[in-house]
């Protein structure tokens, strides 16, 4: 089966997650082998996901944990005394 580029884009997410059926995967792979456009879209999407998911993008502010646990301590003390 031969598919067009825009149909390949519909499969990108499932392809990256490994949730396509064997047949769909084979079809997409065959298309990717000769299509620079779809290969670049797939690679860049994978790259964007990896970068965005990196812990360094949304770091905890300095002192976050200390402030949180100090506030929790107040609450815990109140709950014990009530």
């Amino acid at each position, binding site marked *: 089966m031969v598919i067009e580029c*825009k149909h390949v*884009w*519909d499969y*990108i*997410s*499932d392809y*990256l*997650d*490994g949730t396509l059926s064997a047949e769909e995967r084979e079809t997409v792979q065959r298309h990717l082998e000769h299509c*620079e*456009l779809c290969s*670049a*879209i797939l*690679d*860049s*999407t*994978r*790259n*964007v*996901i*990896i*970068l*965005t*998911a*990196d*812990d*360094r*993008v*949304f770091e*905890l*502010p300095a002192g*976050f*944990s200390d*402030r*949180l*646990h100090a*506030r*929790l301590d107040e*609450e*815990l003390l109140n*709950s*014990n005394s009530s």
Partner: protein
Amino acid sequence: MTAPQPNPDETKNEATMIASILAGQTQLFHELIRPHERAVYRMALSYMKNEADAEDVAQEAFLKAFRNLSTFRAEAKFSTWLISITLNEARNRLRRNATMPTDSIDATPEEGGTVTPALLRDWREVPSEALERAEVKQMLQRAVASLPEIYRCVFVLRDMEDLSVNETAEALCISVPSVKVRLHRARLMLQKQLVPELKSVSTTKRRWFSWS
């Protein structure tokens, strides 16, 4: 890009800790939440869009979790429950701050149309080292924050917090097929926005491509 399997020991340990906390050993709550601090903060930040408000929302979410711990059902995952509390807290806060525009879940067109990705012929991988640069980090933060809410929360839970499709569906009270469709659209929207920006950074500042 596949979610890790839940660790049964971890879940059992959490259940034991929760029982002890409810029985009066409240100090254990500190230990119970430590592994979840980052996830709760990131969820809050993706909504509030500034660090101070996100920290406030995260603190409130943990306090509410403590106050409502007795309502936690053992069959749910503690992390998923915490995320739901955080989401509610962030949404309530945004609703109260009328100055911040919020996208209503109902008003956003549901899964209609298709997202066309940024078209390109070749892609030179941007290495993770690029995240040492503040401008690249901010670029990624802005892109996530600019996603419409229904896509943003799915993306944050699935791709940033590594929740499974089922856990994401549970945390957001939506169906599994909706999670898949929204995740796909979120990923393509991010690709569309970020690829031209990342390319321009990589061609103007070549020092982290010194091997090319």
